[in-house]
């Protein structure tokens, strides 16, 4: 049976050869080994071994430092290969925080393609250079950023008041004496994160008064009262990540929270976005996405045309510039919060988690921008989109002139049951005091004060019977039979009928709404004759009768 012996000999020698190959591959040819053998310190070559940064509080075990050795704990002095350079000085020491917390990618991997996320099945591709600061969102979720225009105003105020003369912020300014380094005051790039003295202005004043010459006399000027809160906003948002702050403010101006939740706050119509930054490119369809197969590109295209990227999406396309789309993409990528041990909870998050503060600024403009602007438009002009119901213009002066605050507040609080407008007085919506702020802000949108209305809330005494007939001929064309709504809004809505005063209803019909399909019914139009005030009152009486006996 020589055959069997030859078989055994051949198979054994082949196994031996393959095993030898595998051993060489494992012990000599691994990428990280080939990099590490070039590593040198002053004391000689470094030990060739797997290195990693473990931080259980952050839940990282990053082996990135097996190749990027100089970023490993205590190995800053390693050099000898292009990859072996120390991380540039940063606040969050990579030897402590690890790499993936900021950069994304897969810290468990020890091979370049896998670690950088350039492989097919990859849950966390690395953030590229342009979106690097989205990584801050892993921990810093509550930066208290206001909406776009306010942020812009704040930034302009800082420039206008010449604060850059003494202070350097985000690599700009501090130009007072360029030849001597230029700085008189401290660098303010991170004051939003490290906190600053709220009494800075009186102290500035005092120093200026005490000084006899120099920049305190020449560069510093008194600041107008209305500029102080703007400067406060500007300082608050200086967290050394101006890109992220700008992206956040675009998000808080685009009304996304009206439908989406971020960390438990927002509407229910769309998917929760709290961890949208981890969206896996392997699990979304790129079928209708032009451009490359990166999640960044997918998000941008999705903002431009939601329904064509995700079939059946009810999300209205964002009326945004390309730059704003990029910012929204950037912001979405930054939605990657991780649960952190108390030791690593950043100040902003402590404020939100432990003291119940909002993750965004709570002025009226920001609240409106975050919750309402998606449907009602940034300026309250309303939106009309093919295939979707039209969203009313709430800044219409004709509306604001006759709508009492109670009507606005009730509408925001309770919404329009059965329509897309949700009620916002809910644990994951707006708080009671924020409600007031929003209502006050909506008033400023139309720049219209409400006209004095001496009449009580219910004063119409006409009979509903006649109103029903008039409604059927004059109103039902837009508002639908029985006021159930069609092209125009439904008028049988209990919240509307409960909160609207008679004056509001009568005046709405009498004056109409400029800029909408609703014309003044006191004037005749080509398709119908004019109504009298008595007619209008009977229509209102009819609408009241739809309320079901409630007064």
């Amino acid at each position, binding site marked *: 049976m*020589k055959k069997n*012996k*030859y078989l*055994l*000999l051949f*198979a*054994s*020698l082949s*196994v*031996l050869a393959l*095993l*030898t190959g*595998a*051993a060489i591959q494992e012990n000599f040819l691994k990428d990280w080994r080939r990099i590490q053998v070039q590593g040198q310190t002053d004391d000689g070559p470094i030990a060739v*071994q*797997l*290195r*990693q*940064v*473990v*931080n*259980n509080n952050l839940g990282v*075990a990053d*082996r990135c430092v097996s190749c990027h050795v100089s970023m490993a*704990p*205590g190995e800053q002095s390693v050099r000898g290969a292009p990859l072996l350079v120390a991380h540039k000085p940063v606040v969050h*020491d990579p*030897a*402590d925080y690890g790499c993936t917390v900021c950069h994304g990618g897969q810290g468990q991997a020890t091979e370049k393609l896998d670690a950088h996320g350039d492989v097919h099945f990859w849950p966390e591709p690395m953030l590229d250079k342009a979106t690097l600061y989205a990584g801050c969102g892993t921990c810093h979720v509550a930066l208290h950023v206001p909406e776009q225009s306010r942020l812009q105003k704040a930034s302009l105020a800082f420039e206008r008041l010449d604060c850059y003369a003494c202070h350097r912020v985000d690599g700009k300014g501090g130009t007072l004496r360029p030849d001597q380094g230029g700085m008189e005051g401290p660098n303010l790039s991170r004051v939003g994160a490290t906190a600053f003295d709220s009494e800075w202005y009186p102290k500035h004043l005092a120093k200026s008064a005490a000084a006899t010459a120099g920049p305190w006399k020449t560069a510093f000027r008194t600041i107008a009262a209305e500029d102080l809160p703007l400067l406060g906003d500007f300082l608050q948002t200086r967290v050394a990540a101006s890109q992220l702050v700008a992206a956040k403010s675009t998000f808080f101006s685009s009304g996304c929270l009206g439908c989406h939740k971020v960390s438990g706050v927002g509407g229910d119509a769309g998917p929760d976005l709290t961890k949208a930054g981890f969206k896996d490119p392997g699990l979304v369809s790129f079928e209708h996405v032009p451009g490359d197969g990166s999640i960044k590109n997918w998000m941008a295209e999705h903002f431009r045309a939601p329904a064509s990227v995700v079939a059946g999406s009810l999300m209205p396309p964002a009326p945004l510039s390309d730059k704003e789309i990029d910012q929204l993409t950037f912001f979405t990528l930054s939605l990657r919060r991780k649960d952190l041990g108390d*030791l690593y909870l950043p100040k902003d998050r402590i404020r939100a988690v432990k003291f119940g503060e909002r993750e965004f600024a709570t002025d009226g403009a920001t609240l409106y921008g975050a919750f309402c602007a998606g449907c009602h438009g940034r300026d309250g002009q309303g939106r009309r989109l093919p295939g979707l119901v039209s969203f009313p213009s709430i800044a219409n002066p004709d509306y604001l002139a006759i709508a009492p605050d109670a009507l606005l507040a009730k509408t925001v609080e309770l919404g329009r049951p059965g329509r897309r407008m949700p009620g916002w007085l809910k644990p994951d919506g707006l708080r009671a005091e924020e409600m007031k702020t929003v209502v006050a802000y909506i008033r400023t949108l139309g720049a219209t004060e409400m006209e004095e209305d001496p009449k009580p809330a219910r004063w119409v005494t006409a009979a509903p019977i006649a109103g029903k007939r008039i409604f059927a001929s004059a109103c039902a064309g837009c508002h639908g039979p029985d006021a159930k709504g069609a092209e125009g809004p439904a008028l049988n809505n209990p919240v509307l009928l409960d909160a609207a005063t008679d004056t509001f209803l009568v005046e709405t019909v009498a004056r109409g709404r400029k800029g909408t399909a609703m014309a003044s019914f006191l004037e005749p139009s080509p398709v119908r004759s004019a109504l009298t005030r008595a007619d209008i009152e009977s229509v209102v009486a009819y609408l009241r009768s739809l309320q079901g006996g409630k007064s």
Partner: protein
Amino acid sequence: MTTTPAASRSRLDPEPVPRRDWLGLSSLWAAAGALLFGVTGMLKLPKAAVLASPSKKFKVTLPESLAAGEAFVPPGRAVAIYKDAQGVYAVSSICTHLGCVVKPNAEGFECPCHGSRFAANGEVTKGPAPRPLPWLKVTVAGGAITVDEATTVPQGTKVA
């Protein structure tokens, strides 16, 4: 290995195979070699290449109110850190006997497991511990204190 006299060999027990079976032997040795090589390789597996424990170097901020000779134990670390006029120093609080975590007290340290006692400088005063508690390397750079649990320094090394 007994050899049977030729006379007593039966039909079932013929002469030993005289010729050396080179092919058979080499194939057997090749198989043994391959399996042995494989097993040796496999034995590397249980020895973990990376440990799940955090870095032995850590940064620490001492409380302002820390009195001279009073131990500060950072959360989650078995190290007692002191600060006095000469500077900062760190003493490992892992018992040199069998690795229990010793507790700092007024006199020094006491071990809850087998009753070892240590003086404040780490010297053994009582019990089975064979060596004093080691002092750990401390670096102070720009106000930030870094302790390296993996590197010991001679007793009495204080860093200002």
